[in-house]
């Protein structure tokens, strides 16, 4: 077993509000190998976003540690680029400028203008958005915005790419297209990806491992399922794939089981 690129070790996260402590994450441990695609799934409010934000460095841990290449994560940084659910593009910049902001910050000091331009265009090309490079975020569709968000994150050449429900706000068709794009990118650049979702099919389709979180408060990792279906995967054929269907079944029953717990324990 090679050394994991990212490891979460006994992470506890508590939030304080008006003197009351709420336990969000309770002893979460996870190791992620280089090039692995991990989906994190769970009911809303179970703390999966908190977990991602811990890795992003946007939320501090109460106890435990998140390690990237054996170095503790203490704050946000470009080596852990995030694709936010609501795209978070800067509306006063064009698509090109949004990506260039990231490229300039990381390579502007060391590389020529031409090289920077090439990097921006390459990354826009990866998500097939070069045609709209001079448009502003307000002028393109939600799916296209999310593509640019992905291009911006990829342009930081992150060690781990963090996707926070990246397709949550999109319609089903656009969602499917983007899932294909992400799969293709993952196959091509072998990125290590951590993705949050609450869509079972999406979780299984994209991931090597699906991490299921139990319900909060005091959420922890309930179960981890390996998705053994061979890559490249094709959406249409997966419903005939037995291992895909059994993974799917396992996740659905896990979620249903935990759904009932919520009903008896209203927050």
């Amino acid at each position: 077993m090679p050394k994991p690129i990212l490891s979460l070790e006994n992470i506890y996260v508590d939030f304080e509000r008006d003197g009351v402590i709420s336990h969000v994450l309770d002893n979460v441990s996870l190791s992620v190998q280089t090039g692995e695609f991990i989906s994190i799934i769970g009911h809303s409010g179970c703390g999966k976003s908190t977990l991602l934000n811990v890795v992003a460095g946007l939320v501090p841990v109460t106890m435990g540690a998140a390690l990237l290449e054996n170095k503790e994560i203490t704050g946000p940084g470009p080596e852990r680029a995030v694709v936010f659910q609501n795209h978070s593009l800067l509306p006063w910049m064009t698509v090109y400028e949004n990506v260039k902001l990231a490229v300039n910050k990381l390579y502007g000091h060391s590389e020529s203008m031409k090289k920077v331009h090439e990097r921006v265009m390459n990354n826009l090309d990866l998500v097939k958005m070069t045609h709209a490079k001079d448009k502003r975020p307000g002028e393109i569709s939600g799916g296209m915005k999310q593509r640019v968000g992905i291009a911006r994150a990829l342009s930081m050449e992150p060690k781990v790419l963090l996707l926070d429900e990246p397709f949550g706000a999109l319609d089903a068709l656009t969602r499917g297209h983007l899932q294909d794009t992400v799969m293709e990118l993952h196959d091509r650049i072998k990125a290590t990806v951590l993705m949050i979702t609450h869509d079972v099919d999406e979780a299984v389709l994209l991931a090597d491992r699906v991490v299921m979180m139990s319900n909060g408060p005091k959420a922890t990792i309930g179960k981890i399922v390996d998705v053994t279906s061979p890559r490249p995967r094709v959406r249409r054929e997966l419903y005939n794939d037995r291992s895909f269907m059994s993974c799917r079944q396992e996740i659905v029953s896990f979620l249903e089981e935990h759904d009932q717990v919520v009903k008896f324990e209203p927050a």
Partner: protein
Amino acid sequence: MAFDTPKFATGEASVPETQTKEASPVPARATPRDPIALAQQKQINAAKLRKFADKVSTWLMPALTIAAFLLIWEVIANAFPGGLPAPSMVLMESQELIFNPFYDRGGVDKGLFWHVMTSLSRVGIGFGLAAIAGVLLGAFIGTVDLARKGLDPIFQVFRTVPPLAWLPISLAALREAEPSALFVIFITSIWPIVINTAVGVRNIPQDYLNVAKVLRLHPVEFFFQIMLPAATPHIFTGLRIGVGMSWLAIVASEMLLGGVGIGFFIWDQYNSSRMSDIIVALMWVGLVGFILDRLVAMLGQYVSRGTTAD
């Protein structure tokens, strides 16, 4: 807005043509037997008529109200002679002032254009300085919470001080008329800029802050790339209020300071009891104030295009 309308009015002749092209891909000149085409034609005609009526009324209504206003003024002024001059009197007495704003006979005997330009240049300097200082100060107290807590109460008190109340202090401190006038404009117009900028900076969406954090932008990059553009709509609200207040301040302070300038002109004419000239000058003051406000608003719209779109 009355200011946008001229470009529509000049293009009026061509509007019906483009209308037909856009609205009906179906042939508009249809045979009389085709009921759908007839109905469509009717729709197009109705829309054209509505647009035309709308355009006419935007120009006609202000003209009517102004005419009514002048008429009432004329009647009242004639009913009480010895008070304010009637519009017809103003036109007669102040002909040169109205029709030749550009004359210059040396000293303070100049056309209104030159008086207004002098006042405007003072506003330009005072307001320009207030804009720069106000945005910087606003950004500072918007970011540093301790600074906001310490300074906000002082700002809230200072901003209610009327422009002219600053004049004696600034004259005492600066000892000369010109810098005192500039200081009064500066100190009057800076508060709305500071306060609005601070609100804008404090309201930058968390998403943009997260982007800045992940990219590890340093403070200068953050200021120019994120903070300024995100706060632009708020900043321009402040600038717009500020420019209006600086115009108030300059007219008032020139009355006391003397020299050239529209405020001084009004005071000077008052001392020589030339009411008609004052009325003409008032209209200039109002129009210039209106244009200043529109200019800042238009600049704001141009600069912040896209910032509000999601």
